[in-house]
């Protein structure tokens, strides 16, 4: 029997269509079909200046928009040959980890909710909501921040922000402890998650899995350790790995990664130096507002940056950052104008969807829900 699940199905979240061939309750073969959220990101990129893309980039992975921001800015900065200031470097690292925390919280909350663990969902979303409000104090938005800038950041940290951050991290520990207590050794939870959606390392690599899914199979492959970018080389952290590569391992890898992120954030809070956040480069950084109003050179500079966009030297660059779901790559091609020739996103979710059938075939129909939750498909970056 062939059953069509999705794209708008009671049991799944996100817009994905899974066509499953069943034998009783057992799934024989699946065909995963995505693209229901294809919003033409790459076409929009070819129509906007390098700066104007930042809001679009945000909406790729809306769970951790800041990581997208910084990866994109990193790509453009490499093309322009810009070295960001130390303060920005540390701040970006901190915010990337903070975003990873929010992303994993969302993923774990959603997948637990689909198993019926509403309490855990409410706990995790409460923490996440505090983080959203906290980020809104910094960036002005709760979900889609548009905070990264080419050559720096939109604004410096407001007064008292780090103090509140410490409070939220303590709340996080309190609530996460409760979630651990609720589900970790819960018989129902283990029965639903253990030995379901198992993946071996060789298979995971063959199908292009990265991030927590690859790590849950037992390889400590993490771009933050392997090819350190931003300030990761100076941080002390572990790369948690799983054993079996099943749903339970993926859940636990995410939980452990959050703890590592908190550990990193605490280190970074002591490391952030004072200084400017934007580089002194008139090719991409906007002049200060009062200078724009009072000085003709700055006015022209501002006008050129807004109307024509920053001029990025011709060339192509690929940057890969460790996003919350795996390797987020930007392949950026410039032909020397203020508008990109091409921006391509190597999104982890899309690749994971290509291999998702390896984790669904051979298990029960009800396991589709848990496995799909543990992949954490994000429609925005999957379909772009």
């Amino acid at each position, binding site marked *: 029997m062939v059953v069509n699940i999705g794209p708008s199905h009671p049991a799944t979240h996100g817009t994905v269509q899974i066509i499953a061939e069943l034998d009783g309750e057992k799934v024989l073969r699946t065909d995963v079909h995505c693209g229901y959220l294809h919003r033409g990101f790459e076409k929009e990129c070819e129509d906007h200046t390098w700066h104007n893309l930042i809001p679009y980039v945000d909406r790729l992975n809306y769970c951790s928009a800041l990581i997208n921001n910084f990866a994109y800015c990193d790509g453009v900065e490499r093309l322009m040959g810009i070295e960001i200031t130390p303060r920005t470097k540390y701040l970006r690292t901190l915010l990337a980890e903070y975003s990873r925390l929010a992303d994993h919280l969302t993923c774990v909350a959603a997948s637990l909710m689909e198993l019926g663990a509403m309490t855990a969902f409410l706990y995790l979303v409460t923490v996440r909501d505090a983080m959203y409000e906290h980020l809104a104090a910094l960036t002005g938005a709760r979900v889609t921040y548009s905070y990264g800038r080419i050559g720096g950041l939109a604004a410096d940290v407001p007064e008292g922000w780090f103090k509140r951050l410490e409070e939220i991290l303590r709340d996080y520990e309190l609530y996460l402890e409760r979630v651990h207590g609720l589900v970790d050794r819960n018989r129902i939870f283990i029965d639903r998650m253990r030995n379901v959606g198992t993946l071996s390392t060789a298979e995971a690599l063959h199908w292009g899995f990265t991030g927590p899914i690859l790590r849950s199979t037992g390889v400590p492959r993490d771009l933050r350790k392997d090819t350190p970018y931003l300030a990761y080389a100076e941080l002390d952290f572990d790369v948690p790995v799983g054993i079996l590569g099943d749903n339970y391992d993926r859940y636990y890898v995410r939980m452990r990664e959050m703890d590592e992120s908190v550990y990193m954030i605490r280190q970074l809070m002591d490391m952030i130096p004072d200084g400017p956040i934007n580089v002194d480069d008139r090719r991409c950084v906007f002049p200060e507002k009062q200078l724009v109003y009072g000085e003709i050179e700055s006015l022209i500079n501002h006008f050129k940056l807004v109307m024509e966009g920053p001029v990025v030297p011709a060339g192509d660059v690929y940057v890969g950052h460790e996003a919350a779901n795996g390797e987020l790559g930007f392949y950026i091609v410039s032909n020397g104008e203020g508008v990109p020739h091409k921006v391509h996103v190597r999104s982890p979710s*899309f690749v994971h969807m290509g291999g998702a059938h390896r984790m669904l075939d051979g298990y029960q129909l009800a396991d589709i829900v848990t496995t799909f939750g543990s992949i954490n498909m994000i429609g925005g970056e999957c379909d772009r």
Partner: protein
Amino acid sequence: MTATVFTQLEQSLLQSLQVPAPPDADEALPLSPERPVRSLGVQHGILVLELLPEALVRVARGLRDDFGFDLFLDVTAVDWPDRTPRFDVVYHFYSTTHHVRIRLKVRVHQAADATAPDVRPEVETLTGLYGSAGYMERECHDMYGIVFRGNADLRPILLYEGFVGHPLRKDYPKQQEQPLVPYRPPQSALVR
């Protein structure tokens, strides 16, 4: 990651692919069947090779088996409407052992028109080497109309059945909408 790693990699790569070293003056010679691979050097931290389409699968196999590039990251195309081989098909690979990325570039021609139907933007598929190539090639086919020879499953993935044209080609107008088609389940490999 140091430059020496790349130099060594580059040399051993070209050696194993048996690419004759060009005389210094001929660095910019176009690729030919006798010399199907050319190194474009290290660009922004990635070793870039340009190849003829015929050499693609051989090179990719060599990269996977002999050099440990076990993760196929990405395939996409770049449209240069004014150039004669119109498209660049760009591949990215990553080695989880050496932590190095490599980029392969292949130039392919545009489908001319009805009078010359055999000139299609065509490259060999990599699905035989990497499972992850399947989905990414489908996307590239959707967006640019590149045909991956040997990939049996080139159904639309991001677009819908019945979408005419390839939206990421530069000659596709950004706002050109297509009439809404009634809901049809995607032709599934299972249903077929």
